[in-house]
């Protein structure tokens, strides 16, 4: 003989619409309570809301794409990135060299061309002023001519 199903207590409501009793008469939801984190590994984070949208471009980068077949980079060059009115500007502050373009790629290409031109010109010149002599020395730490 099969066992009888358990009887769950039920209430037969009257026909028609009825309102559920409201806990707060004003109709607003009760104030939410912050739940204290119990996770000991939880790390508190402070969010800074800025009016300026954050940029995906880095403020500094290491340049390593010298597009000159006769030259080779010994080590990456630290560049500062800034945004002009419409252009992206990459600056190597140590020697006051820069490149710019409408995109970061264009700016990097412009910088590469300019740097190669500067390196070659300084190699050609024997008589240089103190400042350009210093620029030449710094450049030689970063760039060398490829052996043929």
């Amino acid at each position, binding site marked *: 003989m099969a066992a009888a199903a358990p009887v769950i207590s039920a209430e037969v409501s009257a026909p028609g619409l009825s309102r559920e009793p409201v806990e707060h008469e004003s109709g607003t939801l009760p104030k939410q309570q912050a739940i204290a984190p119990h996770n000991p590994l939880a790390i508190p984070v402070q969010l800074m809301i800025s009016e300026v949208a954050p940029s995906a471009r880095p403020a500094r980068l290491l340049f390593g794409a010298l597009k000159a077949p006769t030259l080779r980079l010994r080590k990456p060059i630290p560049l500062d990135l800034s945004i*002009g*009115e*419409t*252009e992206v*500007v990459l*600056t190597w502050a140590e020697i*006051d*060299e*820069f490149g*710019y373009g*409408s995109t970061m790629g264009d700016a990097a290409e*412009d910088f590469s*061309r*300019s740097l190669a*031109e*500067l390196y070659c*010109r300084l190699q050609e*010149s024997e*008589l*240089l*002023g*103190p*400042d*350009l002599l210093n620029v030449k020395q710094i450049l030689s730490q970063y760039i060398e001519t490829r052996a043929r």
Partner: protein
Amino acid sequence: MDAKAREIDIIIKKLGMETRNSRDLHAWLVHNGMVVVRTRRSHGKSKYVPADKIRCQLKVNESQFAGLISCSVEKKDYIKILTDKGVIAKEDYKPEVPNPIKKGQKP
């Protein structure tokens, strides 16, 4: 601070800088046979010229840079500025002296 390409050209011409036209216009100031300062500007269609970066390459402050674009800083003044800053060695500093006009010679 953005200048126009034409204003950079004024400086290059005023200082009598050597130029080389490639994809960009490269300019070099040669003083007493010695290359002392360089700058460049792009030939691109873009109106943007990073004047502040060019100013740094020319080793001048903002008012001196404005003076180079206008008429207040001439080449001899600029050479003096570079000498004072050590960009030109003091022993290489030879101020340009205008040739004295002899009697009967047309100026």
